[in-house]
């Protein structure tokens, strides 16, 4: 990476004065897009400056859903924050649970039983599949493909959510992981039901791809739009499918090998161009890889306890110290930074939200493109406002 080049370019990018394009006459049009725009996935605002159809400035505005999750967590016991992590990225509550449990286990030096590791992988990858499917559905919805692709995705997501419901009692707010284990055991019946759902998934992806991947309109709208260069992506802390679509081989499942990810065979899909189409394609390919992982995990899952016998539910007080635990959540690197002072509450509880940090490069991707493409580029970042604003 040429460090000086990226640095100077970044400095140019900041606090741009209002630009009048050489060909344009007259003033810039300033548009507040959101917070109640249908494409903003909730309450997110972009302050755009437009020269005709062309975007010359974009400032994201956050905080409409801010409830100071971190402060609330610092006033509650460690376990009491577990249900609240569901509300961060409410599409993927199980991976949020996992990241938090992982960070606390690291902080307290706890072990996790073998069976729980498998359960976590199965649930985490099912979460990834349904997140990617629905995020592609939303992307297509924003492109104007009203309803159909989204309903295809939701049909499959429904089956996975039914699995979550029968195991945890809730479709989206699962509150399932515990420090050193998980809340209830999976039954043989549940595993059979999961195998049945997973067996149907490859057909769904094939169908989805036949419908979309070589669709003329999708290619015309997505290819070459919202290009993100790998140097900028790494420097700006972009993670997850966004980073890999730019061609950077960085998957925390492979790098950190947390849990038991070193036991499974899977590949990390990478993009070539870093445009919206690559992000779409990387998500499709990740669904396929996740299906492979779930199949392997469902085959190998051993019998055993679901809670570490040394784990304490009541009176849980980790020794003073700090820890940063992170996982590859469907949207990127989800991390929890915890400081313990020996008390029952965390002294410091910090969420590293992938959705927020991936938006750092939103302006860079959108400059010079049309307003209609902003919606598309924003959709390809795949964010959930519950996590952005916390």
């Amino acid at each position, binding site marked *: 990476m040429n*460090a000086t080049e990226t640095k100077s370019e970044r400095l140019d990018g900041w606090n741009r004065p209002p630009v009048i394009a050489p060909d344009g006459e007259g003033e810039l049009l300033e548009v507040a897009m959101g917070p109640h725009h249908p494409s903003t996935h909730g309450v997110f605002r972009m302050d755009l400056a437009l020269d005709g159809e062309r975007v010359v400035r974009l400032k994201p505005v956050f905080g409409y859903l801010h409830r100071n999750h971190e402060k609330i967590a610092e006033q509650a016991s460690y376990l009491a924050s577990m249900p609240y992590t569901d509300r961060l990225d409410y599409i993927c509550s199980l991976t949020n649970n996992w990241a938090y449990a992982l960070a606390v286990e690291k902080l307290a030096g706890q072990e996790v039983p073998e069976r729980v590791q498998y359960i976590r992988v199965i649930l985490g990858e099912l979460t990834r599949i349904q997140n990617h499917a629905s995020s592609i559905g939303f992307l297509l919805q924003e492109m104007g493909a009203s309803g159909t692709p989204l309903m295809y995705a939701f049909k499959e997501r429904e089956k996975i959510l039914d699995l979550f419901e029968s195991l945890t009692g809730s479709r989206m707010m699962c509150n399932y992981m515990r420090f050193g284990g998980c809340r209830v055991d999976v039954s043989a019946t549940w595993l059979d039901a999961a195998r049945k759902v997973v067996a149907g998934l490859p057909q769904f992806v094939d169908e989805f791809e036949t419908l979309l991947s070589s669709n003329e309109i999708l290619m015309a709208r997505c290819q070459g739009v919202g290009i993100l260069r790998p140097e900028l992506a790494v420097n*700006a802390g972009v993670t997850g499918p966004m980073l890999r679509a730019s061609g950077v081989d960085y998957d925390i499942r492979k790098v950190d090998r947390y849990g038991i990810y070193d036991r499974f065979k899977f590949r990390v899909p990478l993009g070539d161009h870093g445009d919206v189409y690559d992000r779409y394609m990387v998500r499709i390919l990740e669904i396929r890889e996740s299906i492979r992982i779930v199949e392997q995990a469902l085959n190998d899952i051993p019998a055993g306890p679901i809670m570490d016998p040394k784990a304490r539910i009541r009176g849980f007080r980790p*020794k*003073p110290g700090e*820890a*940063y635990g992170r996982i590859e959540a469907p949207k990127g690197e989800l991390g929890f*930074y915890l400081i313990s002072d020996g008390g029952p509450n965390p002294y410091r509880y*910090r969420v590293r939200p992938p959705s927020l940090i991936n938006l*750092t490069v939103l302006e860079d991707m959108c400059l010079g493109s049309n307003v209609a493409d902003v919606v598309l580029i924003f959709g390809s970042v795949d964010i959930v406002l519950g996590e952005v604003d916390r």
Partner: protein
Amino acid sequence: MKSAEEIKAAIEAAVPGAGVEFVPNPGPAAEHSLRLAPASAVAVATFLRDDADLAFDFLSNVSGVDWPDREIAEKVKVARTVTKTVDGVEQSVEETVEETRKRVEPGCLEAVYHLYSVAKKHGPLVIRMKTANRIDQVELPSLTPVWRAAEFQEREVFDLYGIIFTGHPDLRRLLMWEGFKDHPMRKDYVEPDDYEYEPTPHDHVLKRAQERRAAEAALGTEGLRGCGTNKRETVNYEL
């Protein structure tokens, strides 16, 4: 990856007078950290990013931490000369007495950065910086020119903790609204009596207002916050 001590040695060799301090982590995670001196932080960060061996090109996480002033009670043994009457004669006798002394350890605000390397696939390296105090000397150098990943995260730390990052290109509040006057993640932040104005406070709002009044009267100050410049602007009821 090199250990934190080795990285400290590498920094000191490359950046003369860097003033890096090793901060051990007593917990089981044992992720030790390095505390940078604010004056040389940008030079050290640039070295960490650009050095071929270390190559910490990816800044993952920026968090603020608040350490309020702490009152520490210590037992100290003090030698004293006491006049005593022994056998009818006044004598000066040396005695060792245990005394409890209280001292106030001044607080600070801290910014903690977690670095990884995408190129070398190693990490994390934890670096941290602390401010001189919590009231008026709250400036730290911004690392956004080195890692752009800090852009929004430093804005968030500024918003919620009140650390002013000098050199940040666009330091505005991120989550709280424009015109908000306080830093809610600080440990001594006092909630407003109510978030919406009502002409007559009642029930829990009234109770909270009375408690705040009593606490303010006990302290003899107006406004509970230790941070002089940041009086809150939300509703405070006059009772």
